[in-house]
């Protein structure tokens, strides 16, 4: 059975280096399997996060040959044969150890988004009525598994470290799911424009490219939110209209 060489980042916040491991790779194996094999056979102290091995828990995010990926969904057979495979932790978050990072900035960013605020129930039994056509858009966003690969690849976080002034693509997806929800009555546009920094996104679409759930982050969440921000803050004609047609124009 063929062997493959893996170059894995080993280290913690005080420093580290790449270590090379060779392990047998069989048909259908994914990178996470290889990491587990290395952990079992050669490096019992190798830190790696995982849970479902099915691409659904979002735990095993890392960078395989420089590309942000779920290790459990990256087949070894799809990697260039005969070449060493580089596995690194995500770069946009503080390193804990080896392949694990501290993603808690994401939890803080999520808390900053105003929660769901539904209108009063439609029926006496306290339930609501929605049309599937209206919920299609938020449903795309609800596929998010919070793997944070989009946050990792986004240069605003990765290269410019604006974690405090930019909530990042995952949380724009979250905000969009709420903002476009047919029952929601909250207005998050001032936050998005202000402290959540949607203006920092320069729509380079790297987030969309890495999303394992194939959420069209930039086109379906971020740009529509940017357009709503324009409505509210940058479009004088729209403003004028609103004077004559008060109330929430979005419903």
């Amino acid at each position, binding site marked *: 059975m063929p062997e493959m060489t893996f170059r894995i*980042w080993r280290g913690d*916040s005080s*420093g580290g280096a790449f270590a090379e491991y060779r392990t047998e790779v069989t048909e259908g194996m994914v990178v996470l399997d290889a990491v587990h094999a290395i952990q079992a056979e050669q490096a019992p102290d190798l830190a790696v996060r995982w849970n479902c091995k099915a691409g659904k828990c979002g735990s095993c995010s890392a*960078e395989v*040959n*420089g*590309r942000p990926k779920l290790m459990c969904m990256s087949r070894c057979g799809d990697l*260039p044969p005969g*070449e060493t495979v*580089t596995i*690194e*932790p995500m*770069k946009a978050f*503080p*390193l804990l150890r080896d392949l694990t990072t*501290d993603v*808690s*900035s994401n939890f803080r960013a999520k808390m900053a988004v105003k929660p769901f605020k539904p209108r009063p129930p439609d029926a006496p039994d306290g339930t609501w009525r929605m*049309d599937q*056509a*209206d919920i299609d858009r938020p449903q795309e966003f609800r596929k998010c598994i919070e793997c944070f690969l989009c946050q990792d*690849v986004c*240069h*605003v976080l*990765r*290269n*410019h*470290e*604006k*974690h405090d002034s930019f909530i990042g693509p995952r949380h724009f997806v979250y905000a969009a799911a709420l*903002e476009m*929800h*047919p029952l*929601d009555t909250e207005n998050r546009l001032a936050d998005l424009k202000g402290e959540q*920094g949607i*203006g*920092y*996104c*320069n*729509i*380079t*679409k*790297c987030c969309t*490219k*890495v999303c394992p759930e194939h959420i069209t982050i*930039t*086109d379906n969440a971020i*740009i*529509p939110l*940017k*357009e*709503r*921000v*324009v*409505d509210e803050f*940058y*479009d004088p004609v729209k403003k004028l209209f609103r004077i004559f047609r008060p109330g929430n*124009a*979005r*419903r």
Partner: protein
Amino acid sequence: MTRTDVPLPQHQGFGATSRRDAWWAQPLLVFLGLSAFVVYSTWAAFQGVEYHFSGRGANYLSPFYSPELFGDSPHAWFGPKPTWYPTWLPWSPALLILWAPAGFRFTCYYYRGAYYKAFWADPPNCAVGEPRSGYRGEHTFPLILQNIHRYFFYLALLFIVILSYDAWRGFWFADADGGERLGVRLGSIVLLVNVILLSGYTLGCHSLRHLVGGGLDRLSGRPVRKKTYDCVSCLNRGHMRWAWASLFWVGFTDFYVRMCAKGVFTDVSIIG
């Protein structure tokens, strides 16, 4: 857990990446494609001649010169170059109007993302290190001005109407007896394809998508808006392809008319 910033030491600086593919190829192609267009269209806009073709009764006008507000061709709306036009400014009918489609493309969400990468390396490509550490994005001046895109869209819509008329005129040919008859020549097709591609691009605009329904949370019970939103969304999914196809073809249309006017191309008759 408190946040301690310890970036990995091996990934600093311009072009630093662990990617193994030719990540530079795509931004390079965008750079070359857009540069070629800017160079050609600027050159063509400054020519001020050979932008229309009337050989064998044709009515072709280069899209770079349409609408021709003032000018010497029969297509001019308000007659020749106005006397009040400053003498120190270079003159060409194209210079009066080209800022509108240029502004439309410049502020287009697709092109923005593409040229930020290709011309400004911000980032050079996904997961590749950047040359500068400071970053303001579209959060503050000057790039915050990109938010006027929808106004350029309104103008672009006007241009589509005008270019549709030009395409229609491209199917009419003057007779020897002073009348006009319908016909099809290669130029007619070139002008028609031009307006089709430009429409596909313009009608897939994100601002339009927002305007027709994206800005609403509920489209159920509004069948016309829902249908329109779905149509625009459908074009929007291919916005990048429309952007490139229409960019290439609008340049080619000018080139075709120009070459006919110069007498280099013979405008082949297809029907009539």
